[in-house]
Structures are given as C-alpha cells and as structure tokens.
C-alpha cells in the first residue's frame, strides 16, 4: 500500500484535508459545512495518513474522545441555563466584521464526537479484519 506516490500525495493532502475540515467547521454556520461534514473530512484525512505512513503504535483511548465531544456539546448549552434561558440557547454578537457565536462550541462538540467515532470504527474494524 505504502508506495512513494501515496506518501508524496499524502504529505500534501493530509494537512490540507485537516485544514479544510477545520474550515468547514468554522464556516458551517453560514455556508455548507458544519460539525458533521468537518469531522468526516478531518477523519478521512487522518485515515489517509494512516494508509500512507502506517498507524502509530500504542493504544488509543477513543472513549475519551467521544466523551469529551459530548461534554463539550452539553457544556455549550449550560451557559444559557445559568442565565435562565432554555438549555442549548445560543448567543451571537458581532465585533466589527467578525462574528462570535456560542453555537460554534456546540458544533465543536459534534466535530470531536464524529472524528473520534469515525476513527475508532475504522481503526478497530481494520485491526479486527487484518
């Protein structure tokens, strides 16, 4: 699998894919993208990296990633509760041309869950199948 071509391509595509995923995450509120798509793009980039350079040794704590993502998602909604608004009410404000929106934190939670779950499934089934 690990041909020179793949490695060369991966050197460029993997970082670009991860960056592209993060971009999709940030712009998701206004353009196509969002936590799901961003997470899947990032996960695919990482999988490509695994294909090209091999999987890093050691035991990965995927459960931690999944729980972390869920915790971020829940935490992003708790702020509103502290202020007496319904759970998961988000706030938005503009500082000049820059938009600040708390729902981004929620999407980050989605992103983390999707990345962790996808990588967990691919890696586990891969190792099980080989």
């Amino acid at each position, binding site marked *: 699998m690990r041909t020179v071509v793949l490695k060369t391509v991966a050197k460029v595509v993997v970082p670009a894919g991860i960056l592209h995923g993060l971009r999709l995450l940030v712009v*998701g*509120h*206004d*353009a*196509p*993208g*969002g*936590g*799901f*798509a961003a997470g*899947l*793009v990032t*996960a*695919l980039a990482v*999988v490509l990296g695994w294909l090209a350079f091999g999987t890093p040794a050691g*035991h990965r704590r*995927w*459960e931690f990633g*999944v*729980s972390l*993502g*869920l915790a971020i*998602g*829940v935490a992003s*909604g708790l702020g509103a509760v502290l202020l007496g608004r319904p*759970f*998961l009410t*988000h706030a*938005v404000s*503009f500082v000049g041309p820059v*938009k600040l*929106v708390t*729902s981004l934190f*929620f*999407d980050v*939670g*989605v992103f983390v*869950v*999707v990345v*962790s*779950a*996808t990588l*967990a*499934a*691919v890696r*586990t*089934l*891969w*190792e*099980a*199948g*080989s």
Partner: protein
Amino acid sequence: MDFLLLGVPLVPALAAPCAAACRRAAWLVALGGCGLVLVTLLLAAPPTVAGLSASAEVPWFPSLGVSYRLRADPLGTLFGLLVAGVGVLIVLYARSYLEHEPRQPAFFAYLLLFTGAMLGLVLADDLSTLYVFWEATSLASFFLIGFHDDRWDARQAAVRALVVTVVGGLAMLAGFVLLGLEAGTFRLSEMDPHRVQASPRYPWVLALVLAGAFTKSAQLPVHFWLPGAMVAPTPVSAYLHSATMVKAGVFLLVRLLPVLGGTELWRGWVLPVGMATFLFGAVVAVLQDDLKALLAYGTVSALGLATALAGTGTELGRDAAVLYLLNHAAYKGTLFLVAGAVEHETGTRNIPQLRGLARAMPVTTALAGASVFSLVALPGSGGFVAKDLAAKALGHGLEGWLWAGAVANAAFGTRFLQVFLGRGDVTARHEPAGLWAPALPLAVLCVLFGAWPPLPEAVVGWLGADHNVWPKFGLGKVAPAAAAVVGGVGAAWLVEQVPGRRRVRGWGGDHAFDALQRTLLRFAALLTHFTLTGRLRDYLVVVLGVAAVGAGLPLLSHGRWPEVGPISLEAAFVGMAACGVAATVLSRSLVSAVVALGAVGYSVVFLFMALRAPDVALTQMLVETVTLVLFLAVVTRLLTPDVPDRHPLAAVDLLAAVAVGAVAAALAFQATVGPPSQRLAEFFAEHARQAGGSNLVNLVLVDFRGLDTLGEITVLGVAALGVLALARRPR
C-alpha cells in the same frame, strides 16, 4: 408554616436511606423520623379543630392541573397522627423483636418508606398525589411481607399482596382520571358532588374507585392476601396489616364520601360487600389455630364492618367508621404485639400448644386482657362505644347481623385469651420490657376509649359532627352485649371440640390466585413459543409485512396515481442509482456488492445536489467514503461461502420485498401530491437573524433543534463504543 406540611411524608422517606446506612443506630434514625413527624402533626392539629385546614402545593404537571398538594384537614391529621404515633411504638417494639436480625437496618428503611408513603396518602388533597402514595404503600408492603426473602412462602405472599393491591390500584387510577375529568378538578377539597353524581359516568367512577378501596382493605373476594401477609415479621403485621395500611381502603371511602357517597348505588355496592366480609372474616377467624392468622381474619372482619359503615353514606356512618377504625387500631395493634411477644418467647404461634402463659408473662396477659375486652365490646370498653355507634349508623335492619358478628368476635377473642389460661407444656422464657412497653400506650388508649367519654367525643367533634357518641348504658344494650360474649365463649369451646378444624386453611382465593398465575405463565410461554422463533428472518417478514399492509391499505382507497411528465437531468441520476441497486443485488461477489452499494450512494449524492441540498450531499459523500473503507476492512474476514444465501422459502422473501417496495414507492409519491408548503422554509428564514447564521440547515441542527443533534451524537458515540467493545483486540 404551611410549607412544612409538604415535608411531612418526605422526612421519613429521606430518613430511610440514612437508616439503611447506619448499622446499630438504624432504629434511632427510624425513631427520629417518626417522632419528628408526630411532633409536626401534633403542632398542626390544633388549628384544624377550629376548622382551619392548612394546605400547600408544588405544581407537578401544571398543564394537566396535576400537583403535589397536601392538606391537613381533621380526617387527614387524625389518620396522620395514628400513622406516626403507631409508627413510633412499632419502631421501639421492632428493636427488641428483631434483636438478632442481621438485616435490621433494611427493615427500618422499608418501615420508614412505608410511613412516609402512608402519611402522604392520608394528607393528599390531589388525586394524583393520593394515587402515587397509595402505590408507594403497596410497594413498601411488598418489601416488608417478603422481608424473609429466602423463604418461598414469604416471596409468594408478597407477590400475591402486591398483584392484588396494584391491580386494584390501577383500576382506581382509571377511576381517579375519570373522576378528575367529570369534576373538572383533581383537588379533593374542591369537588362538586352534584356535578360528579349527575354525570353518566358516575357508575364507572364508583366501580373503579371501589376496586382500589376493596383490594387495599382486603374485602371479599380478594381478602386472601391479608392472611397470607402474616409471614411478615410481627411488627409489620401490627403496623401495616392491621393498624394503618389496610385501613387505607376504608379511609379512601370516607375521604370520597362527600363526593361520591350518599347515593343508592354507593349504598347498594359498598354496604353488602362490607357486611359479607365482616361476617365471613369473623367466622373464619374463630376456626384458626395460628395466633396471627386468627388476628388477620379478625382484621378482615373489622375492615368489613368499617366498609359497611362507610357504605351507609351518612355522616353518622362516617363517624362510626372512623371511631371504629381508631378503636380497632388500638386493640388489634396491641393484640398483634402480644402475639409477637408470645411467639418471640415461646417459639410457636399454635394455639392448641400454648396454655398458661399468664404465669411467665403477667404484663403481656394484662395487655391482652384489656384489648380483648375492647374486641368483644363489653360495656365500658372502647369496642362497646364504637359498636353502639355502628349499630345506630347501620339502622334497625342490620342489628341482627351485627350481633352475630359480635358472637364470632367474642369467640375468637376467647380463643386468643386461652393461650394465657390453664396450664401448658410450652413455657415462656421471660418477658422483656421491650416487647410489652410499646403496646402499653395502645392498650391504655383502648381503655380510655371506653372509660373516658371526652375522648371519643373529641374525635367525632373534631370531624365536625355534633351527634351524641356516648352510649346510654341501658339494659337493652348491656344484655345483648353480655349475651354475645357468653355465646362467643360457648362457640370457642365448641370449636375446640371439632376434630377437623385444622383443615380449615386457605379459606379463599390464594389457591385460585396461584392457579391463575400458573395459567398466565403457561400462556405466556406458549405465546413466546409461537412468536419468538429466534430467527431474524421471521421477525423481519412480520414487521415488514405489517408495515406494507398497514400503509398499503389506506393508499388503495385514498391514494392518487402519477402522470408521466417530462424527463429532466435528475432522471439520469435516478437511472444511475437504479443500475447500482441492480448490481448490488445481483453481484455474486461480496466485494463487488460493496462497491455497487458505494455507487448507489454516490448517485444519491448527485441527486441530493440536484435537489438543492448541498449540506446533505457533502455529508452523504463523506459518509459513503468512510463506509466503503469500513466494509472493505471487514469484508475479507466475513467471506463465508459455505452459508447458503437463500432458504427454500425464497418466494416469500421475494413477495415481501416487492410488497414493501411497492408500498414505499406509493407512499413516497403520495407525500409529493399537493402543493408544496413554504411555511417551514419561511419560518426558519425569518428566525435565522436571531441565531445569526445564514446556512439554514446548520441553524436547524445547532440552534433550532440542538437537543436532537445532541441526542444524535450520543447515538453515534454509543455506536462507536459498541464497535470498540465488540471488535477491539484484547490488549
């Protein structure tokens, strides 16, 4: 101050886990819990005498008018005092009685749970509050009856009691809902009797509520659970199954008397059941050889009389029922505690074996004497006062039956006392104060009820009535009472001579109940055998078949059918997808099937793009890629050529597939018939400014329906954990 009231049922309930956590001091926690409640109720009692009923509520389901609402009215406070007061005595008694029981903390925890539930029941002013506490008492009773859970008979008795009372409770719940709807409110204190009784559903309400009351108070023919419950430790029998919980049914009748009572229907249903139970229980009690069984049937009988009194539907009947219940709690509670002491010290409850205990247990004997005095209703006893009022309330037609019951009462009272008289082989070791002191206040109450006129008058006056309670001791009343006692002693002597009386057991429905239970289990096994074949295919055929038929039938009658229109760009993608589907189904090799599935997925991606769903298309494309990776990872492992792909019933499968497909197509088409609505699109566009984004799909996901998305990532996370658990290599 009123809000303190809300805590009354909660204090014992909260003390329960503390009691379970403490080892030695569990009884102290229980004592503290009951005592605190007793003091609170004593403080709350004086205003209710003046007619001021404190009430407090916390909304529960405001939209349905349901709330946690308590009200300290005279009736509720009176019963609350009874529950808390007897509770204190029982805790003290149980400490000595269960001295060597390793699970004592658990016992006190259950007892506290029960006390809390019972207090909530008597103080509830909202039907739903009442129902919740009602079932909580059943549950606590279940745990206490089955306390010796290593014994089959204890477990079975607990199950019987639970099933009977909970089935009755469920009927009662239906009755409560109907009652609340008919009355327009769930608040007991605000119900209008005329409105309820004029309703055409009144008979239903009455029948369903009575089902709850009768099962709880062990009326014929479901009385059998109460004698069965005697396998519980004796403090439980004294507390739940004679002094408090079993009175809940009669309490409910008295509580609802102003709303549901006073009609011909009420009288016609409640009175006969009560009288029949009264006579049946009294007669069967005489025939028992077990001390506790004798008392248990005596309780059934007493509950029958109280039910009959409530069944008169009059205020006099209500007061007679309450007075009778209080008096019964005092003397029957004492008798149970005495029976427990006898069993504790001699190791048996068998009446024929026990004789002459008076010598070793003088105080216990005196207590038994005082309470039997009240039981047989001799003039000067509380029983006499209560029975006299009962006779007044029942009227002339039923006096004969009442007298017959009194003879039977006297007979089983005599049999109980026999244990202390004469000489016997079984000797008691000694008489610890812990087993008689707690019964003392109850016995004193028995005596006071009959000897001190202000006490019963105060009780009745508290309930708001002004009729004369104190009987006139004329010859016309004393003579029948004395005659009943003489007759009773004679009957007891006769019973002792009957050789076959030991066979008189299980008088009632417990065998029928067990048979019904067995039949149900067998039916369930049969049903399981037919429906749960263990083959996925069978389930799928049923599920899909039902879905196809259920959705297809209405389509046949109401559906519209498509007209052929012009072919557009999307048609090409549809064609691509169709080819992919065909390849997926027809391909021989698994790998090519997987690849064909991917082709279908990418065609669908194009369709989504064409149908103006860019977010969906993007996600679908990415997921399709990852799924392909996953499939290819395991496909080599899962190649199992030796498994036959089709079984002989392939035709059924084909039929199911075609049916499901046809119905799905028809359903999908029906969904598009009619003008497309722009309402939702406009709604989201309008409110998008608030959320500050412009990608509407993402706004729906994170802002409008964030909770759904949170649930979704939870599912995804759980699925990932499932994958890890199933397929991860062991370290």
